[in-house]
């Protein structure tokens, strides 16, 4: 039998009041825009300087039309947007870094097609080949690439490089020869690091993607990305063999094979700028310059050189790997559509280009806006490519592209798994539907 003293009853009541209050407070309402209120909300996870530059130009353009832009920086939009769709609390436009997520949004019926909103025919000629395909789902354009980064790049320390007389290779064979030559000179050819907190492994997937698109061609690459071609296949094994040759061979990588999974991708390239370079080449995306030491960043053109990752055969097909942010429309009001057309204009990047790592996906973008020659070189690698191919792991289902592809390749590199097991695990993790 329960007996409650007077004081006990009071405090019990207080506790239950509080519990009920918390319970009720949990039922706060989520916002959502249905009607056209001449204000457009944008969410993105792009780097703050890129966002600031894009936002400035867009706000000016929109003001002329009487539209207010509310641009919010959010963390990890890929996850957030799916959660917010479930909660029915979405922005008007979301910048999605992964084509696969654009596909997921379309699957849930929340995205509106851009055909008829933007001038697709004009964009087809002005944009880098392949960029529109990246945002296309079921033959309709849903994601418009606004900013991009280029990943098929090899960076090197410019001054020592020139002194040693090395030259950019024009084929993968020439890259192997160059690697051997640097080693023969008593140096360590490659910097390599794939550690990236909870996302460890992604830099290795970039290597695989670059090699697969070169050995298999863009179509072979797309078949691999959509799992028509398995990981346990000749083309992936050819890529793995080349990766193994460059990265696992004794003396090829600073710190050796065992250091790859424990070295952070952001700092892996820094030994290039030691008085005597600790390593001589670092394959990484265009954003990596932001991670370099301060005194290097202060004068990139004097310190850093780069070449595009070479094609399989000299003069042959030369696709380029990259990523970027796909503007996706989650609202179909007139204001939102108007803002989408503004985002499709090349000059939207005029401000961002000067002050950030922004690369415009428009070939007719005014290259003088880029802050230095290095960035112009990065843009040139993309504009000269035969096809821009979106990061493959980003397009694979999350289980693979942000799961086993990272984890099992990491396990292979660090020696927990052999290649056969790793490839099989990745294939097995591919979801059935």
């Amino acid at each position, binding site marked *: 039998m329960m007996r409650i003293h007077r004081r006990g*009853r009071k405090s019990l009541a207080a*506790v*239950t*009041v*509080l*519990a*009920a*209050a*918390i*319970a*009720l*407070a949990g039922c*706060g309402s989520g*916002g959502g825009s249905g009607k056209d209120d001449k204000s457009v909300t944008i*969410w993105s996870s792009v780097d703050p300087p890129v966002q600031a530059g894009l936002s400035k130009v867009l706000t000016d353009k929109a003001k002329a039309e009487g539209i207010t832009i509310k641009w*919010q*920086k*959010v*963390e990890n939009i*890929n*996850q*957030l947007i*799916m*959660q917010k769709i*479930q*909660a029915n609390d979405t922005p008007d436009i979301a910048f999605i*870094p*992964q084509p696969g997520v654009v596909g*997921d949004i379309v699957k849930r019926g929340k995205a509106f097609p851009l055909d008829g909103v933007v001038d697709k025919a004009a964009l087809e000629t002005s944009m880098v080949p392949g960029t529109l395909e990246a945002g296309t789902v079921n033959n309709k354009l849903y994601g418009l690439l606004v900013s991009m980064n280029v990943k098929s790049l090899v960076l090197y320390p410019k001054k020592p490089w020139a002194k040693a007389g090395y030259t950019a290779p024009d084929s993968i064979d020439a890259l192997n020869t160059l690697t051997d030559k640097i080693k023969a000179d008593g140096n360590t050819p490659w910097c390599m690091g794939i550690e*990236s*907190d*909870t*996302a*460890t*492994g*992604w830099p290795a997937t970039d290597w695989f993607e670059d090699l697969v698109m070169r050995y298999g061609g863009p179509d072979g690459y797309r078949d691999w990305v959509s799992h028509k071609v398995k990981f346990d296949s000749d083309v992936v094994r050819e890529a793995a063999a080349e990766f193994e040759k460059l990265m696992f061979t004794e003396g090829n990588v*600073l*710190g*050796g094979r*065992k*250091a790859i*999974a*424990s070295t952070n991708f952001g700092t892996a390239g820094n*030994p290039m700028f030691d008085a005597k370079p600790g390593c001589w080449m670092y394959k990484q995306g265009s*954003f990596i310059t932001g991670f370099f030491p301060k005194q290097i960043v202060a004068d990139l053109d004097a310190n850093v050189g780069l070449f595009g990752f070479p094609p399989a055969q000299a003069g042959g097909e030369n696709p380029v790997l990259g*990523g970027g942010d796909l503007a996706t429309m989650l609202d179909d009001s007139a204001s939102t559509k108007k803002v989408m057309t503004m985002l499709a204009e090349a000059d939207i990047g005029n401000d961002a280009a000067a002050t950030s790592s922004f690369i415009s996906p428009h070939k007719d973008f005014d290259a003088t806006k880029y802050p230095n020659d290095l960035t112009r070189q990065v843009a040139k690698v993309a504009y000269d490519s035969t096809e821009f191919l979106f990061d493959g*792991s*980003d397009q694979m*289902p*999350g*289980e693979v592209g*942000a*799961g086993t592809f990272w*984890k099992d390749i*990491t*396990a292979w590199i*660090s020696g*927990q798994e052999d290649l056969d097991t790793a490839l099989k*695990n990745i294939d097995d993790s591919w*979801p059935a539907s």
Partner: protein
Amino acid sequence: VWDAQSRIPGDLVPGVLVPTARRPGKEGVTDMKLLSALLTVVAGIGAALLLYWLLNKLAELMPSKWEERIKPFFYILPAYLAIALYLIYPALQTIVASFQDATSDTFIGLENYTNLLSNHGFQQTLFNTLLWILIVPAATVVLGLGVAVLSDRLKSGGEKLTKTIIFMPMAISAVGAATVWRFVYAAQPEGQPQIGILNAVVTKLGGSPVAWLQQSDFHLNSIMLMIVLLWAQVGFAMVLLSAAIKGVPADTLEAARIDGAAERQIFFQVVVPQIKGTIITVFITVTIAVMKIFDIVYVMTNGNFNTNVLGNEFYNQLNTNFNNGAAAAIVVMLMIAVLPVMVYQVRHFKDEEAAA
């Protein structure tokens, strides 16, 4: 993609499948949202007060004999409803979801369970979790007890200092502790300056840097992760056990000494039996925490190099794979595993209360 480093969730409760949309995110909260949140809180408290006032009035309408009888139930009712709504309902929903596909649309029977249990990676995850359960609670109790006993013998200043230092990591969140220890274990390529203290020592002594978190032989890396939890939790065990030891009546110790018992005998045959209740409480509390362990593994390795545990696998199934079914199945397995421990704990508490 390079910016895909995941947001670290503030609170993960593997006990129930938390509706992800309700989880507070870091996304910018505008003034409007803040205002609306404040208003909901005020309205919520107001409504709750009103509810209780009404229930109270209702009870007062009854004959006074009935009023006293029914009031406690009226007061407890909303709390029961809240538990039903926020604990029992999600738990049931999770069980249902564990028999459904990734998007919780169609029933697929036991497929989530069979897929998981037949997967070699998941078997390793289970084994690693088991290792945590076997090692960490026992080690916490032993270390906590050791510190409590030894510091008990110091002068009071020394005791305070020792206890404060050992207790301090308790003030750090698991995520913070994991971040700190990532630096302890950090490895740079040979020839580069070592920022991790372990490798700084190793290289100073002339060795090559070791990538500690990749040393999966004999699960060394898992054990290195466990050390982080021990570091963070021994203080908790120490405080409870120290209080219990101080509560052991001095006359029992004196009686033992007069009877000629050695210190070791006194400890194991006089002290330990009298603080058994506290030892069990500490052991069970740590066991339950370890079964749900997530943050340390997520931050330090995200399960790479064969260090995965159930809590981390659950998080990745839900937030990387968007697989509600598999995530729910993991939670259900965890619930089933935790249940007997909980039942034992509740019984143990009841026995303690009855004995007291």
